[in-house]
């Protein structure tokens, strides 16, 4: 059985699936890492990490803030609180050219509308015809270069067989292409997606093939649940982990962050 769907935080309820995902994603960050943070789930997770076990985490937002220390979840990447609490505010060209492009950022934290078995990301169009899409999505934003230039990429995404597909309809951001070695062939410097966290579990690329493999399931989730929400023939790591459930402290911090942003 899956955990309860996210129906908004309430201090007397157990964790929702989104909360489990946010906590799992937050735990993946540590120390003084420099994290390039997309808005939404990545921002929630990165801020939670900074408020719990990783107070020295350096949050970089594409709106041009280095070292933001927001006391609430920013409503957008341009939320004033990001600028007001930053070590430095810089122009958008500068954040991409001087800070992202040269590989100064440890972790790029991205969301996805579609993610495929090799960690390629689509946020552009659903459907095979770009010019006549079934669904027009927002587009690339900063993601293609975040995916290219950060030392590693973590993806956080709600999982379903529609979002977790064999092959994305459009490669907005390059993951591992069609397998191991494709990034090197293209001269991409970062390691690409090394971690994918969903509301069901955790995935990592197989070191031999770069295909995403299930390495952990969250509390209350079965491997069959995950398979049912995966659009390819999912491989499972032999030493499958179970994500420890959010601690009371983690959950309280997450809910406090969300509450403060209302």
């Amino acid at each position, binding site marked *: 059985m899956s955990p309860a769907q996210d129906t908004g935080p309430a201090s007397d309820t157990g964790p929702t699936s989104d909360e489990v995902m946010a906590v799992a994603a937050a735990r993946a960050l540590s120390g003084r890492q420099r994290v390039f943070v997309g*808005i*939404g789930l990545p921002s929630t997770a990165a801020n939670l990490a900074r408020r719990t076990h990783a107070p020295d985490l350096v949050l970089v937002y*594409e*709106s*041009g*803030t280095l070292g933001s220390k927001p006391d609430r979840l920013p*409503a*957008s*990447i*341009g*939320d*004033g609180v*990001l*600028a*007001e609490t930053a070590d430095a*505010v*810089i*122009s*958008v*060209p500068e954040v*991409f*050219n001087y800070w*992202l*492009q040269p590989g100064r950022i440890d972790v790029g934290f991205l969301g996805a509308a579609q993610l495929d078995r090799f960690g390629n990301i689509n946020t*552009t169009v659903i459907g095979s015809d*770009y*010019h*006549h*899409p*079934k*669904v*027009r*999505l*927002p*587009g*690339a*934003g*900063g*993601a*293609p*270069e975040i995916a*290219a*230039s950060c030392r590693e990429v973590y993806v956080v995404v709600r999982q379903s067989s529609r979002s977790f597909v064999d092959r994305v309809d*459009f*490669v*907005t*951001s*390059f993951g591992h*292409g069609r397998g191991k070695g*494709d*990034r090197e062939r*293209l*001269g*991409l410097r970062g390691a690409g997606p090394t971690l994918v966290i969903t509301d069901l579990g955790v995935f990592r690329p197989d070191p031999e093939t770069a295909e995403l493999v299930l390495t952990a399931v969250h509390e209350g989730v079965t491997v069959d649940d995950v398979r049912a929400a995966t659009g390819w023939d999912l491989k499972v790591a032999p030493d499958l982990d179970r994500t420890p459930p959010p601690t009371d402290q983690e959950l309280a911090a997450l809910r406090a962050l969300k509450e403060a942003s209302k």
Partner: protein
Amino acid sequence: MAEIGTLAEAIGDLVGDGDVVALEGFTHLIPTAAGQEIIRQGRRDLTLVRMTPDIVYDQLIGAGCARKLVFSWGGNPGVGSLHRFRDAVQNSWPVPLEIEEHSHAGMANRYVAGASGLPFAVLRGYVGTDLPSVTTTIKPITCPFTGEELTAVPALNPDVAIVHAQRADRNGNVQLWGLLGVQKEAVLAARRSLVTVEEIVDELSPVPGAIVLPSWAVTRVAEVPGGAHPSYAQGYSERDNAYYAAWDPISRDRDEFGRWLEQVKEAAA
């Protein structure tokens, strides 16, 4: 020297049918009032350029002002989709919308090239993605020293750039601070420029983090308090998050949007 005048005059004088127009402001200082004045004056066939076509361009697209959109991320930030943008792309409503799609890094560098008087910019970008297969303004370029292949994008030089700023002085010098986005680059890349400001003051006292655009680099200044609503002007206003949420149902429905449009057209600038 920038001339100081009203918003309606400025749009009337600077923005013509068929122009390439960039309204910039990266989630902060978005010149929404100027966009609505363009709607009110009924401009058509515009090529709209903007890194993040959010509500301001959803409105212009829904009103049928645009023939083409050059952009890198089109969404209602923190809320979801831009339904007028989607309706135009998916259903050509109210008019077909051609798109030229880039990444943020590419768009930012295109403005930098435009501001620098160069025909193109070089970046590490787009590699491995499907964007070069659908966007003709992305090409490879080889380093003449190392032989390494990189990516080139052409300069953006809009006919008109419009931005919002906190203040200008009576000589038309403009001061803005907080998140700076690509506003300086957009103004410098454009042939003509309009800056709407929260207020016109006698003197621009120094502010930490502020930049100044000298009057001689700006064509027109118009005092439009609240001109960035529903985005914000740091030091003057807060982001109206409720408006972003409220836009979703208006944008989602053609009739709802039509009623919104009538109201805008009836309002004076």
